[in-house]
């Protein structure tokens, strides 16, 4: 036994010493999961992150910013009606297996996404009538109507060109092994050379990449079952970098002492409270206003998230065009006096308090969710006219219940599909989108406003429309914004180049070892 133990120690040490010299490889830990290894099926941040590193779009964001710049396209023109975009493509670009990149590849890839009708297909089918090949290096998008944010859409992986000789035309690929050749061939800075679900993904620099060579030749993603183990793995040195999603207490501990590089990302993720507005007790907008006034965002941020997020007073996040602070001025923060005035006006009293169920889901948004629900219940019950029953359900049940109008008020969170204020507003208050979110808000006046901002490319028109929408939001209150989530990346001191902007795109090619 002793001998075996000694042998293990020697072998283990030998291996760790040899691994310490491998400075061309970075190990990145995450608790995220890969869904489908196909842009026609994937509709989640982590799988998109992988495609953003192995693929390229016609347009892309400058790392760490919201500036859209041409990537596989060299530029584009829009017709006067705003419903036709023509992109000129970069010449001489090849996939990592040598397949040339042309306009036909772009058309094939986008047609395939639409035809396979996977989860993200609506990002294409809702807007694009056809993709036409003008010549080998020119492609034209004919749209169903004028659209201001097509350049942002073509920067999403759903629009990324995929090699027709590798991806099957008639089915969505689940795992890399189903691809012709068994490997995702790349147009981006890396190629994915191996993938074991829930264990690891290995990326190696793409020798045919059209852009600048990555700073680190090999990136390995290690998948963790929980945040605590990931934090310990960083402290132990098993991983070089940890991202998504650490617990608030882990973030606070890792920030102390300066042992790690900490990058705080003002994320595009927002958290908010949704009301079922068609049949529940919250059919009356006055009750929605009262409940909204009782929420104290700063207290939630301090008590639950240890000050790591930012209170939010509009559904459009801070840092994005057209953001206002209307909720702060109209309904306030922890404004018990205003809430009680509204509730008394509706006939509620200490003897007959306004009673409702507040729902949360305990694991989907991480461990702090239950704490947020408890703090919010306490905030609301600061008014003796309110009585809150906290209820919870796991995600699958939760989703079913909001579809069935079984939850009068409940917490949700949002990561955008594309970086535009439209994606933070219309899904919640435009008739069709609102149904899917369990809000069931419907108003012709609101729908018209959304169509107006979606169809115009004029900044002044969009500015005034969104200003109006945000003001109306504090009156109708279909949802209440609570906070804008910051994300944190921790890395060893010798890792630099972490640039993640509000788009949340993590470009691995920017990473470098400094020593």
């Amino acid at each position, binding site marked *: *036994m002793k001998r075996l133990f000694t*042998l*293990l*120690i*020697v*072998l*283990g040490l*030998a*291996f760790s010493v*040899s*691994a310490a010299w*491998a400075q061309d490889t970075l*190990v990145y830990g995450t608790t995220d999961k890969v*869904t*489908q290894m196909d842009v026609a099926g994937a*509709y*989640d941040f982590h799988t998109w992150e992988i495609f953003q590193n192995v693929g390229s779009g016609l347009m892309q964001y400058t790392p760490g910013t919201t500036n859209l710049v041409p990537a596989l396209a060299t530029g584009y023109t829009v017709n006067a009606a705003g419903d036709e975009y023509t992109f000129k493509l970069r010449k001489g670009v090849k996939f990592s297996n040598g397949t040339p990149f042309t306009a036909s590849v772009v058309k094939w890839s986008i047609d395939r996404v639409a035809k396979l009708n996977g*989860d993200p297909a609506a990002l294409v089918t809702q807007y694009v009538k056809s993709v036409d090949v003008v010549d080998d290096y020119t492609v034209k998008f004919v749209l169903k109507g004028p659209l201001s944010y097509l350049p942002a859409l073509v920067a999403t992986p759903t629009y990324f060109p995929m090699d027709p000789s590798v991806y099957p035309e008639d089915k*969505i690929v*689940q*795992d890399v092994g189903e691809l012709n050749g068994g490997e995702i061939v790349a147009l981006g800075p890396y190629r994915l050379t*191996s*993938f*074991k*679900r*829930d*264990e*690891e993904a*290995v990326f190696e620099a793409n020798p045919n990449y059209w852009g600048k060579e990555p700073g680190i030749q090999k990136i*390995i993603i*290690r*998948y963790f*079952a*929980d945040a*605590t*183990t*990931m934090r*310990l*793995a960083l402290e*132990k040195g*098993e*991983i070089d970098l940890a991202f998504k999603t650490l617990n608030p207490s882990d973030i606070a501990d890792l920030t102390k002492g300066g042992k790690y590089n900490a990058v705080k990302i003002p994320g595009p993720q927002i958290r908010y409270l949704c009301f079922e507005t068609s049949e529940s007790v919250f059919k009356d907008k006055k009750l929605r206003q009262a409940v909204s006034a009782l929420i104290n965002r700063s207290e939630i941020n301090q008590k639950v998230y240890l000050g790591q997020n930012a209170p939010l007073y509009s559904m459009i996040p801070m840092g994005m065009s057209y953001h206002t602070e209307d909720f702060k001025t109209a309904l306030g923060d922890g404004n018990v006096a205003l809430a009680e005035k509204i509730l008394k006006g509706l006939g509620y009293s200490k003897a007959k308090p306004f009673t409702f169920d507040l729902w949360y889901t305990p*694991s989907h948004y991480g461990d702090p969710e239950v704490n947020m629900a408890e703090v919010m219940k306490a905030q609301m019950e600061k008014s003796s006219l309110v009585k809150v029953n906290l209820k919870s*359900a*796991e*995600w*699958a*049940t*939760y*989703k*079913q*219940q909001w*579809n069935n109008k079984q939850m009068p008020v409940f917490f*949700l969170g*949002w990561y955008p599909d594309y970086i535009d204020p439209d994606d933070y507003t219309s*899904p919640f208050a435009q008739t069709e*989108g609102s*149904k*899917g*979110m369990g809000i069931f808000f419907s108003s012709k006046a609101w729908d018209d406003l959304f169509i107006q901002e979606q169809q115009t490319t004029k900044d002044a028109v969009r500015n005034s429309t969104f200003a109006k929408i945000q003001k109306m939001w504090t009156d109708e209150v279909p949802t209440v914004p609570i906070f804008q989530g910051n994300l944190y990346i921790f890395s060893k001191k010798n890792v630099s180049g972490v640039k993640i902007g509000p788009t949340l795109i993590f470009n691995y090619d920017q990473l470098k070892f400094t020593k």
Partner: protein
Amino acid sequence: MRHLASYVLTRFLLAIPMVFIMLTIIFVVLRIMPGDPVSAMLGDRAPLRVINEKKHTLGLDKPIAAQYVDYLGQLVRLDLGDSMIFKQKVSQPIIEKLPATIELTLFGLLASLAIGVPLGAAAARRRRSGGDFGIRLYANVVYCIPVFWLGLLFQLVFGVLLGWFPISGRTSPRLEASTFSWSGFYIVDTLKIGNLAAFGDVMWHLVLPALTLGVVLSGIFVRLTRANMLDVLKSDYILAARARGVPERRVVYNHGLRNALIPIVTMLGLQFSLLLAGAILTESTFSWPGMGRLLVERIYLRDYPVIQGVIVVYTLLVSVMSLLVDLLYAAIDPRVKY
């Protein structure tokens, strides 16, 4: 030999209703629980119409009895069905994850025996001494400790503070498991390619998770070994050995322990199901990519076919293990005949 073959066959046949009962319970419980895989898989944004279409495609809008008949029809063709979330055969993730779970439970079992049996024997030898009291206290304490808590403690102490052992996964990330993964049993795979460093790394990663499982289960073996040893040590043949002047250590460990082990072998079979249950939590704590982690993740996603498939495999594993234990029992105890 003919009797043994018919015994084995009977046991296999008896396993079929066991699997059937387990499956029926799981099948019904999953479907009467609130929530469904479609809502979980389509995320926040899918319209109700799309959700209903998907439910129809997956057959989830049929009555439970009809779904059950369909499922049994698949099972008799030895088809566990397709995952509702990842659209792959259920057998695919199970085949990928099963070796990791078997490696972990096997080493967990070895660790529990390696700790529990000698401690139990030592406690019996020094009955009512301070050592005996300490060992019994240990047995009670470790049996009460939640396995995930002990795992976290080991990670902190032996992983982070002392830095002796890795705290997550089956290998170091830089080893790139996909380069040698063949059978999924990394111990075998690394030896097959003759990579001793990789073998050491794999064994090194097994230490903390196996020890966590082993320590928690060792409590039972301590108590059991001690109780059996106390009975055995009162036997006439032990008295005779002592009278012949055989040294006490030899009396206890060579003559006594060997006979006290027989009921422990029976216990092994019963403990195996506990070990699998413990492995579910241990796999989550140590990010061990096995069936337990798969089960937990798919329960959250309500991926019915995968959950059912994992339960079938767990039930079969327990059946096979208890059969092996019964056969072993016959091999070591000449009084038992089949």
